[in-house]
């Protein structure tokens, strides 16, 4: 045993927040109480596109207990917010651009009162024609959502992005077979069980906001802008979060800006809790996309060219749309080595619900297109989809379809595919289900007209924010007099296990058991801006900053231990009773024998001595991802995670109903800091992805969401969720802490396409529109007859 053995990292330790959560003691925003607290609720727009003529509030104001009604006129600073472009109003001024716009806000003494008062506000509108289809929105005479073009938009086109690599025309000329299809992955609603909420307090000078927030610093900047006060006078404090998945990324900005405004002016605490309907109507959704995908290959199944055109509905405001666009563009051709590729994307304003961040960030949509294309190609070539993929995947040393040299990763994908195929018994089942289906076609005896299918999807995922966006994080580590450790970061615990994983990283770096570590909740006046908690970047980027900070904090302790032991390097050993010791780095001693081992120093003694000698036990960790290459160019992403998911389904041919029976999910995570939480991410992501592919459908009509409830918008229940076998693959990464990469999003991205490919295998034709609901599957079967 030498110094390389890990003490805390890599172990399936219990979550640090689990006890609070199983006893109901965790403090979420809704559990906070302040004396004199007021309640607030917005009056939403009643049209998708209209001019506001008059807002009549007198009747609402006359209700006893109604304190004040706020509109755009009350905003002292900038009325517009937005992470990329400031196109979204805190309160609509002269125009409403979708049903989720806030026209006014009631502040009153009780929840009941705010609901009543909101209904008494009368707004006169001059209704304008709206635009609800992104392709129509691109036509010359279409109504304009932001007519002045001040957000860099040309007409309704918010942004165009694309690239070309090689010679695509020549590539298609050389192809023996070309598959060209259109795919329509739809909206997805986050459906976190806890809706968005916040409580703002103020003394008229400083403002504090508590909330269910994924990115407290985004909120801080929006509140500062809206109130016109410096960021230093604002504290945004994150409470426990009841799920986020991207839906609490930048969206709480307007919610919190409105509550902060009321608290700032009224000098009383103001609470805003969105109803489920307000939540679904007002926050961003996963971008629906129209994807036209042309794929060329040789007779032997070697990919030679890809041409992808993507048009996406951005809704009324940009949100983080351009970042989603970039990710969709880079990943549009999938995880394959394609010498000639061209991708064009257009993200277009409409008067629909705005679209933005959702776990996967454009990844699931483009994977639906590229992975169904691979199965279509396999079908036409008469080839096994698994073999077709293995023939074409990009691997270490290769060039991605977008043109990035995979010099630092790329072994994980083959391993994911082979492991998932092996564990799911791909070959045997593919064959057995085909025989079963053939038999069913000719059988007239059974009562159920069932077909079975098995399908796969394999993906790569660019970890963290891509270049040239700088991706950096800061963390501090403080070792206290009793040896316990305090960590600050701007990363947030949304349920994914960030606190546990960061605690494990810090404990490992300091050399102490897990329970020594406390991670402070994000508070923008205390912690550093570590960047947003998005892009599967907490473990690799914020985790690396945490590791570096912890190493720095413990450095004086290690120096002292070296001096006392007379060596140059020490390592930690944690005794069976939990006491940490420093021993010489090359000491051949196991945990169990530490008592009898003489060359050791108790960590607590070292800490006490350091304090006695006035040594600094504080570390500041900083890191930025290695996206910049020596030649001055940027990598699209500093590294990639890989995954292969395999789905097994049964389809009822008479009703179109699909049951997902089994998911086998292999994900390359670099290093599983906590295998149990990694499994939790894989299982949860896969079921959310299955929901997108199979059953989740947001129905809109002229910009209005027709099913804004969990009864009408169906997320998977325990009866829908299948058996899941999570498989952890570890292709060590040279940057991330202990080799870790991200898992949050690549756990979801491949699943929708895997489910759709399994359905395709079962019924012998593709369903190219999500979800594979009974209606869509039944129509596909009928149209084919």
């Amino acid at each position, binding site marked *: 045993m030498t110094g390389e053995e890990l003490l805390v990292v890599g172990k399936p330790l219990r*979550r640090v927040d*689990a006890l609070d959560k199983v006893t109901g003691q965790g403090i*979420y925003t809704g559990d906070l109480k302040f004396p004199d607290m007021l309640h607030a609720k917005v009056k939403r727009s009643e049209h998708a596109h209209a001019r506001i003529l008059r807002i009549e509030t007198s009747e609402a104001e006359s209700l006893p207990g109604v304190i004040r009604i706020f509109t755009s006129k009350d905003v002292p600073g900038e009325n517009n917010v937005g992470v990329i472009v400031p196109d979204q109003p805190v309160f609509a001024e002269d125009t409403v651009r979708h049903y989720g716009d806030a026209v006014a806000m009631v502040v009153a003494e009780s929840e009941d009162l705010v609901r009543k008062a909101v209904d008494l506000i009368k707004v006169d509108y001059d209704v304008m024609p709206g635009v609800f289809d992104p392709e129509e929105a691109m036509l010359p005479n279409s109504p304009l959502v932001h007519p002045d073009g001040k957000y860099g938009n040309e007409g309704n086109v918010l942004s165009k992005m694309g690239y070309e690599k090689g010679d695509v025309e020549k590539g298609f000329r050389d192809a023996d077979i070309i598959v060209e299809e259109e795919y329509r992955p739809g909206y997805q609603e986050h459906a976190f069980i806890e809706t968005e909420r916040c409580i703002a307090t103020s003394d008229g000078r400083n403002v504090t906001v508590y909330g269910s927030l994924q990115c407290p610093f985004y909120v801080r900047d929006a509140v500062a802008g809206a109130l016109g006060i410096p960021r230093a006078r604002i504290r945004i404090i994150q409470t426990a979060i009841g799920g986020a998945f991207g839906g609490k990324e930048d969206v709480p900005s307007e919610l919190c800006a409105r509550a902060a405004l009321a608290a700032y002016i009224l000098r009383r605490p103001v609470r805003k809790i969105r109803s489920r309907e307000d939540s679904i109507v007002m926050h961003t959704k996963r971008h629906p996309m129209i994807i036209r995908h042309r794929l060329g290959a040789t007779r032997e199944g070697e990919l030679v060219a890809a041409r992808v055109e993507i048009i996406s509905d951005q809704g009324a405001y940009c949100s983080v749309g351009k970042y989603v666009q970039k990710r969709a563009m880079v990943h549009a051709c999938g995880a394959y080595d394609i010498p000639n590729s061209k991708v064009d994307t257009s993200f277009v304003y409409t008067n629909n619900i705005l679209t933005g961040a959702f776990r996967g960030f454009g990844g699931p949509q483009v994977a639906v297109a590229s992975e169904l294309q691979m199965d279509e190609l396999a079908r036409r070539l008469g080839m096994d989809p698994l073999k077709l993929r293995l023939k074409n995947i990009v691997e270490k040393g290769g060039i991605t379809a977008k043109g990035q040299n995979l010099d630092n990763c790329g072994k994980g994908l083959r391993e994911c595919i082979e492991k998932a195929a092996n564990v799911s018994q791909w070959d045997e089942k593919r064959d057995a289900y085909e025989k079963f289906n053939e038999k069913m076609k000719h059988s007239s005896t059974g009562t159920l007209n069932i077909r079975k299918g098995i399908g796969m999807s394999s993906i790569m995922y660019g970890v963290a924010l891509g270049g040239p966006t700088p991706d950096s994080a800061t963390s501090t580590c403080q070792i206290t007099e009793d040896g316990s450790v305090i960590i600050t970061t701007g990363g947030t615990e949304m349920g994914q296990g960030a606190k546990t994983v960061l605690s494990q990283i810090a404990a490992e770096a300091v050399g102490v058991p897990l329970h020594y570590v406390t991670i402070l909740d994000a508070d923008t006046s205390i912690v550093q801006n570590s960047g947003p908690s998005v892009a599967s970047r907490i473990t690799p980027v914020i985790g690396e900053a945490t590791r570096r900070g912890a190493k720095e904090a413990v450095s004086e302790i290690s120096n002292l231990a070296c001096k006392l032991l007379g060596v140059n390097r020490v390592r930690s050993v944690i005794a069976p009773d939990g006491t940490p010791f420093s021993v010489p780095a090359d000491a051949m001693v196991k945990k169990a024998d530490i008592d009898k081992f003489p060359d050791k120093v108790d960590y607590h003694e070292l800490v006490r001595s350091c304090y006695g000698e006035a040594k600094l036990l504080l570390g500041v960790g900083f890191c930025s991802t290695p996206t910049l290459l020596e030649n001055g160019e940027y990598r699209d992403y500093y590294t990639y995670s890989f995954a292969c998911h395999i789905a097994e389904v049964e389809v009822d041919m008479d009703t179109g109903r699909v049951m997902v029976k089994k998911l086998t999910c292999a994900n390359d995570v670099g290093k599983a800091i906590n295998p149990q*939480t990694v499994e939790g991410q894989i299982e949860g992501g896969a079921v959310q992805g299955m929901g997108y592919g199979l059953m989740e459908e947001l129905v809109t009509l002229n910009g209005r969401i027709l099913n804004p409830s969990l*009864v009408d918008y169906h997320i998977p*229940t325990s*009866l829908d969720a299948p058996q899941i076998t999570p498989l952890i693959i570890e292709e060590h990464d040279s940057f991330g802490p202990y080799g870790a990469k991200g898992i949050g999003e690549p756990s979801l991205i491949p699943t929708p396409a895997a489910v759709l490919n399994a359905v395709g295998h079962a019924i012998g034709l593709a369903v190219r529109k999500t979800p594979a609901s009974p209606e869509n599957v039944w129509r596909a079967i009928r149209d084919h007859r």
Partner: protein
Amino acid sequence: MGADVKKNRLKVQYVLNGVLISTMVDTGRRLIDQLRDTHGLGSVKEGCGTGECGACTTLVDGKGMCSCILLVPQINGKEITTLEGITTGEILHPVQEKFIEEGAVQCGYCTPGMIMSAVQLLSDNPEPSEDEIRLALSGNLCRCTGYSKIIRAVQAAAKALSKEGN
């Protein structure tokens, strides 16, 4: 049952986590507000307010119900149990313990309701099959876990309880 019709208030009595409560309430008072705001039982979570998500599941005479769509007068004379009522001091219920052990908790917002449904299931049916567990939990939405580890936790709790029973 005493009633003050003019003020729309009623006298109600119920047993909450083993304690007899006798109080006047507004006739329109929701059970969830009574539990959270009057009794300070923060484990009862609201996710939808319309009985769709199950986060506020509370046992009413041993049967799991959404407390957001029950009015307090409807529970007059009944026995109410929340998550706070199944922990005795520092000692966790086996379902709680297994939720921690199996990693069945992520954001934790559905957890109290989920645990209450599991507690009801195991008291009605000490040896449930996987399908029976899935059915019993199907009124409790979870958006984080994919349900796998929750189901495993309930299976483990069933085993632990049957050992305890022996």
